[in-house]
């Protein structure tokens, strides 16, 4: 019981934030609840299939394959695969965390996972089309190029730091 409570500690804390809000700022509370409900629905629909797909990947794709495609020796090809995986139209970033976690455990390199998450968050194709529409092709293409460069540098740096001191990452 206490163990379960501990696990849900942040969740409960967040839920409690709604109480004073509902008392003093009912308008905001209502809006917040509606947004929360929206995201809840989205999550209930998206998360189960994503986790089952992850499970299938873990039980079918051998680790040495993932290591070969995305691991240390994968080089530019590995970066390319990570980038393409990230740009697929597949939902919000929190979906990508468990995917990246599974890949990392299976031997993908940190550098590639940073690129994967970055592409997923910032460079999705449907998202880019919306950006072009509202901010123009100049803004969008410049942001795209600079973000790709930033992600490659970021990935290299993060990997180097984690390599030097791997134990503290868990």
């Amino acid at each position, binding site marked *: 019981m206490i163990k379960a409570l501990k*696990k*849900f*500690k*942040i*969740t409960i*804390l*967040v*839920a409690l934030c709604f109480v004073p*809000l509902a008392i003093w700022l009912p308008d*905001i509370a209502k*809006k917040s*609840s*509606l*947004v*929360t409900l929206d*995201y*809840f629905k989205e*999550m209930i629909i998206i*998360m189960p299939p*994503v*986790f*089952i*797909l*992850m*499970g*299938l990947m*873990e*039980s*079918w794709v051998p680790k040495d394959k993932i290591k070969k495609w995305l691991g240390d020796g994968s080089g530019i090809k590995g970066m390319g695969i990570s980038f393409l995986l990230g740009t*697929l139209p597949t939902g*919000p*970033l*929190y979906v990508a*965390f468990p995917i*990246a*976690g599974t890949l990392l455990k299976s031997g993908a390199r*940190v550098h590639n*996972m940073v690129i994967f998450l970055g592409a997923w*968050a*910032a460079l*999705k194709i449907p*998202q880019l089309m*919306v*950006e072009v529409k*509202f*901010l123009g092709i100049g*803004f969008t293409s*410049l*942001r795209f190029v600079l*973000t790709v460069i*930033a992600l490659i*540098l*970021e990935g290299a*740096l*993060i990997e180097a*730091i984690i390599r030097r*001191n791997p134990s*503290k*990452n*868990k």
Partner: protein
Amino acid sequence: MATIIVIYGLLAVCLIISLIKSKEKTKKAFRIAGKALLKMTPSLLAIIGIVGLTLGVLTPETISKLVGAEAGVAATAVAAVIGSITLIPSLIAFPLAGSLLRSGATIMTMSVFITTSVMVGVVTAPMEIKALGVKFTLLRNGLGLLAAFAIAGIMGVLL
């Protein structure tokens, strides 16, 4: 909608192939999935609660006031803070940024706003930590913030 079709379509195909090839391995996949889902559920629920709270407080109108033309130099910093904390869906963030740009906000501010809102996620950090570790999460978000300023600086000069 497209997302849902893609994910469920992919799942259906993979599941059928998996079931044909081996029932055992399919069962194993479900066990792995169930375990991972249970582990993630508390942070998932917390995240949607926090997203609800922030979006309830930070409406597009409020954001406009905070990072619009009237906000001046501080706007860029405020944009970074708002962008980093919230998980604004791009369907809201881009039109908002577009209209702010037309009403006089600077390119730099809008670039910081967009880059941080997609690359830095304080709200989603608990979940990222669970999946990828503390160090990875801190580094990715910290460097993402720095990168956002660098990208914005360059964009401000070039555009």
